[in-house]
């Protein structure tokens, strides 16, 4: 049932008018190959039409690879990404992830967010200390002491649009951003947070200027590695 030649056929210019035209010069680089991503994730058009798209430059390689593959396979549901990546092999996805992980791009200025003093205090408490009684870990425990991520699987949290972060928290709370992922650490944590806490954290993060560096892989505690083991297990290349 699944066949259709969508032949973008072309040559033989009608009347031969353009026959002499030289083809467009295409550099044989990853940057050229990654042009389709830039429409939404690029520097100039970062906001797209609805100010939603997250930055991907400089995020950890393993994290990006997991996201790319989960988009392609429908585990992380986002139709535009699934359509874009259908029929791309794991190997090429890994190359894409490595490219963006190594890409250095200036960060956007922080968002202007109005928060009350109480909200700021609440956010800082959760980010730096968590809530031990409710088994909520501090954000910095996994996402790096400067919130710039931990190699190679945990993303940084700074320089991301507020609406994007809110949407991810919503998805985690409603049954998980990643389908069929166990254990699903972020989903469990998001479900423990109240809407007020989520809003305070997201607003605080979006308002921070980006500075600092990603943490090395060995900084992640054994306990948290266990709690989020699925992100490591799923990163294997499949033949």
């Amino acid at each position: 049932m699944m066949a259709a030649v969508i032949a973008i056929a072309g040559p033989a210019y009608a009347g031969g008018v353009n026959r002499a035209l030289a083809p467009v010069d295409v550099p044989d680089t990853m940057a050229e190959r990654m042009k389709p991503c830039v429409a939404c994730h690029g520097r100039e058009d970062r906001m797209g039409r609805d100010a939603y798209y997250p930055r991907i430059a400089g995020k950890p390689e393993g994290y990006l690879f997991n996201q790319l593959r989960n988009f392609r396979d429908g585990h992380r549901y986002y139709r535009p990404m699934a359509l874009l990546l259908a029929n791309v092999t794991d190997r090429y996805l890994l190359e894409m992830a490595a490219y963006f992980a190594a890409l250095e791009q200036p960060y956007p200025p922080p968002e202007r967010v109005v928060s009350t003093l109480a909200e700021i205090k609440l956010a800082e408490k959760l980010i730096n200390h968590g809530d031990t009684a409710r088994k909520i870990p501090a954000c910095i425990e996994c996402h790096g002491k400067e919130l710039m991520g931990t190699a190679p699987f945990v993303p940084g949290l700074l320089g991301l649009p507020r609406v994007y972060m809110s949407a991810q928290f919503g998805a985690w709370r409603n049954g998980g951003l990643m389908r069929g992922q166990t254990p699903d650490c972020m989903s469990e944590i998001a479900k423990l947070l109240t809407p007020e806490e989520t809003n305070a954290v997201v607003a605080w993060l979006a308002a921070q200027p980006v500075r600092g560096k990603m943490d090395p892989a060995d900084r992640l505690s054994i306990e948290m590695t266990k709690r989020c083991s699925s992100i490591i297990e799923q990163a294997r290349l499949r033949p």
Partner: protein
Amino acid sequence: MNLGLLAAVLTCLAGAVLLSGPVGAAPPEKETKVAKTVLTEQRRGRGAYLARLANCMGCHTAQGGHSYAGGRRLSTPFGTFITPNITPHEATGIGYWSEEDFWKAVHEGKSRDGRPLYPAFPYTEYTKITREDSDAIFAHLQTVEPVAQHNPPSQINFPYNFQPLLSVWRAIYFKPGVYQPEPGKSAEWNRGAYLVQGLGHCNACHSERNPLGAAGGETLGGGQIMGSNWYAPSLTSSLEAGSTGWPLEEIIQLLTTGVSARATMSGPMAEVVSQSLQHLSKEDARAMAIYLKSLPESIPRPSTAAPALNEEVRNGLLQGSKIYKKHCEDCHGASGQGAPGIYPPLAGNRAVIMDPPVNTIRSVLNGGYPPSTTGNPRPFGMPPFAQVLRDGEIALVLSYIRNAWGNRASLVTAAQVDKSREGIH
């Protein structure tokens, strides 16, 4: 000696041994055993290759799911078909099936219990597969990892869920029969015809369906893919995707790598290349190309006329040209010349000026990469514009592309763009 035949004979022998039960039959001699194991292995290997060509996995695997465990949803006007698990798992797959059961499904379109199957399973094409090939595919399927996966039943709408109707349908539209080589044609041509008509089941998509879901139009004459918002172009028309005028090498290149100087595979066909055609042996790819190239030109289907270039139309095209300059020219060139094999030329591009324009609209809306294949592992891609441009803007730029650099075709409307947003694939 013909290996396949030998394999078939040995399988029958094996069957006889099984039937005779544990008491009879003396243990076979060691040498025969080794030879048999080698042959069984060879047949399974061949079965794995043939299963690729038939792209069983394509439908019998859900997105991101276990291979062959089924669960993929095929939506059609008759309801949603959910493909079954064909791994050898006994309770949920086809672990209890015999070669004979499998042959009945492939050749006659009947399930193990004798129920007629819905032609969403393309037995109307698979019936042309030889018994030998069917047995080899079955042997392969019996070796894949058994997966315990219960898939929900298909949801078939009234009145199509009324079984006797299916029997009537079969009586009218389905004639079982293995492919018969055409005398007077070369062995290569016949091999190609067998692959295209049988295993490849190309006609399942590349033909117009009548309201009862049967391939009613001209064979390989193109048609809207049922339940998918893509148009499968005619393989018999030089205005669409016919390849009569193409060099053989270029047809082979397109089929096996997904790109060529004048064509790029996208949508459902990119999936077919990725999962099936890129695995074609050199000989089979050549045979397929020879057959496709030989297809006689069909009568062109009626299409919507290009607009008269009055002032209003010219204004629209001018607006479209500005959008083109901003978003498209960088890759496709100021004169639509593109970079053949990388960024498709748009001037003189059949897919761009095709009627209906749905494929081109979808390419602009969703972008995408051609399949990454052994022959083209790191393809260049097209950005999605659904997030960047509005329906009206996409309509303007496509109308321009369809009427620039010598192209002439009907204008695209915002309503057509909106309608093309539907559909997963």
